[in-house]
């Protein structure tokens, strides 16, 4: 759709992420506009001088109830149905993005975040700091941890990210199909060097 025209999608799971984001965005924008539109219409229509409605609020008198159970139930079910259908719809997409691919052809690269940089350990044991090279067309799993404080490992162009937690492993996977250089950055405040805690993902 629109987003794939505007943005370059360098590989999976970015398209899945976009389709989900688009769904939320379109639905959110539509509902928001209708609701706010209704609000402005009411304000315009019933503004003072135009409205002949009687005044029901009087000093010294507790106002009665003005409600209609059916309408309230409508509000309730509308919100609930929209939200739960979204939740249910997202489950397979969530599983697709969350489940770490396994198998012979998956390349697992260990990532160690530290104050302030990223170290990568390839399956053959070689290490590199500040950049990681991966082939196009293969599934890459990043197995992420931290040496010191919380970091957040994010490759924004692939729409993936996860916290780097000391003493624990977290995972993200990508399947790049477009060679190029992509920014890896820390997205969790981790001290003075946070803003410069970057690395490069080189696909090719």
């Amino acid at each position, binding site marked *: 759709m629109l987003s794939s025209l505007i943005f370059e999608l360098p590989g999976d799971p970015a398209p899945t992420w976009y389709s989900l984001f688009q769904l939320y965005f379109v639905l959110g924008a539509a509902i928001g506009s209708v609701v706010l539109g209704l609000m402005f219409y009411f304000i315009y229509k019933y503004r003072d001088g135009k409205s002949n409605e009687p005044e029901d609020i009087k*000093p010294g008198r507790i106002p009665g109830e003005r409600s209609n159970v059916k309408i309230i139930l409508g509000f309730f079910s509308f919100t609930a149905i929209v939200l739960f259908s979204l939740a249910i719809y*997202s489950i397979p997409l969530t599983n697709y993005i969350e489940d770490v691919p396994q198998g012979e052809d998956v390349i697992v690269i260990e990532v160690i975040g530290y104050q302030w940089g990223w170290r990568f350990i390839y399956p053959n044991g070689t290490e590199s700091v500040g950049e990681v090279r991966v082939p196009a067309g293969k599934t890459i799993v990043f197995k992420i941890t931290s040496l010191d404080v919380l970091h957040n490992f994010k490759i924004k162009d692939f729409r993936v990210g996860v916290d780097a937690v000391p003493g624990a492993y977290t995972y993200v996977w990508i399947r790049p199909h477009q060679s190029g250089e992509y920014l890896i950055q820390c997205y969790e405040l981790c*001290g003075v060097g946070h803003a410069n805690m970057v690395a490069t993902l080189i696909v090719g």
Partner: protein
Amino acid sequence: MGDHPNYYSIKHWLTTTNHKDIGILYFFTSLYFLMVGGTLALLFRLQLAFPWMNILDASAYNQAVTMHGLIMVLWAVSPLSFALANYVVPLQIGAKDLAFPRLNALSYWLYLFSGLLAAITFFIPGGAPDVGWTYYAPLSTARFSPQPGVTLAGLALIMLIMSITVGTINFIVTVAIMRAPGLGWSKLPLFTWSILFTVLIMLFAFSPLATGVLLLAVDRVLGTAFYTSPEGGAFLWGHLFWFFGHPEVYIVLMPALGIIGDVIETFTRKPLFGRKYIIISMASASFISFVVYVHHMFNTGMNPVVRKIMSITTESISVPFGVIMLSFIFSLYKARINIRTPFLFAIGSIFLFIIGGITGVFNSSIPLNHLIRGTYWVVAHFHYAMVGAALFGLLAGLYYWYPKMTGKMYNERLGKLHFLISFIGFNILYLPMFIMYDMPRRVYTYSVPEWIPLNHVATMGGYIFGLSFILLVYNFYKSFKAGPQAGNNPWGGWTLEWMTTSPPPPHNFDFEPVISGDQVTLYTNGGHPEPHVEHYTPLPMYISLALFVTFLGLIVSFPIFILGVILTIVVLGKWFWSDVLDKFVIPEPTKSERWPFERTTKVKFGVWMLVITEAMLFAGLIGAYSLIRFNMIDVWPPGPVAHDVRLGGINTVILLTSSLTAALAVVYAKMGNLRNVLYSLLATLGLAGLFMVLKAVEWTELYMKGFTLTSELPASVYYVLTGVHGAHVIAGMIAIVYLITKVIKGRYKPGVYEGVESFGIYWHFIDIVWIFLFALFYLL
């Protein structure tokens, strides 16, 4: 007593306990902190205007964002709602004051001094905390952030939690049992309801935070390893912090919703649509707010099933808010809308809340959350909710009640102009941030060129928004000096605050409002209103100052710390003595509407609330124990091996016996047998003392064996939990000494047993906590 300082004298403002004065003090103080937090924001917005800006370096930038978050959330926006709550809630329920006016003053002064303690960190070596307002461990531990400012701001937070705890209990008791005769729950204005929900959330949310900060302070000051070890670490902080952190959003928001409700009713001349359901929705949102917090930890690699459940609970919290918002909007249908400044701000608040709410739903989706976590999307989202919705709602309230508070009308044209400029500025500031949904927050510079124009626009919006507040200050100042008289009820509102003069007299009403059916009747008592004594006392201010000195000394210099401790003891002693002599007694309201709490006095009610919040404190501690023990299941020494079960058992029996003697004291007090009350209390005191002595023996023995506070994590957990419990026992012992003194001084008449009974509730609670601790440490 008796001598009333002049209203405009400094002495009046330092010693007042009147809720309206306290409200005004809250207003000016929160405005001050709003300015501090706002100035910090304008500084770092300027830094971000271009990537090559050089106004703040990385460290200064981190300090600015951290303090901006802390100050705005804890010391500016939420207290601003309590400025209005203090002023308006007692008026709306037809009460003369809050249930405990002196404790209300204590809340205020603790709040002020805790804020100053936090702000002072800018001026101590190492500077202000720079770890983010979320204080994520392990970054916030001494190993990674050794500067004393991090500890000091933590201590300031503990002091603020004291203020909040006292304030919450006060408001709950007030709304529950001080309502005007006939003012049943269903007739309460929405603002009062919203404050009730706010303080209920606070009651449950803040003590686990106290646990979290306490453990952090122990780590930093005494060298334990709760947050540096992987067994506790980031997860322990995450759970304790976000259990508080997410409900905090609703704490900030709820009062604004209440104001919007009242404002809409007044300016549409129609009852709120679905008022009952709005209140039910508020209640369910308050409850759900405690079971969604894990969405803040979606990215930490925790159990996927838990994550999915939490994703659904997070989405479900939007349902009650959906109902509230749609009901507000439907209230405009077939109304007669008077578009004035408060109404505009209320509508602005709804507008911004809907944007903030819809964008919040994105966060509940796990895959979307993976990307937008830690980005400007999140910044935009929560500013729409917490600044947009909450602050605009509070501004609606300020304009709405300004004529009531001052007796003068503000300038309508300037008010509308303020709305227009601030609303436009706000959107220019935060809308671009949604587009920057992949830019990391909390960075002092950035390298991606697409982000430059958006940041630039946002910065301009920030200045427009910030500077628009000059209009508010000018308008309020000018109108206070020379505005037209507003009269009692300029808006034609129905709630009780509009039925008294503007500003109201110290005792709020010259008559007694009585409600029967939907009619409010004013009884003038033949021109002689019930006597109301104004109380003045400097003790709340002194005690807060003494704590301020103590905490500052703990970080800055030892002699100052000792001075602070001495000051605290002296002031507490004075307070204690003035209570023994009954210098500050406010009679129990006799005619008030208090269903279903007819049989509960306000002190007893307050103690029950205290027990709830203390239970949450221990729940936090026991939660920390469980998490750590679960993570070191193989190496944690079993209870009977590490601890002397026999000694612990003897101590348990001793403490349980003291519960029995405490219960006896209540029985004798009810019978009016003061001599036996005295003996029972003395026995309780003796048993409690014995418990503490045995505890000390046990601690010493364990220390000798090398089982010290910092030797291993199980030891740290043991000492902190039993230590906090021991501190509660000592507090209980002080309460017994107070009761004994009162009995000896002949201050208790037969038939008056409220004090002894309230103490009994607290004491049984302490004993129950010990049974848990005994089982957890000695038996398991």
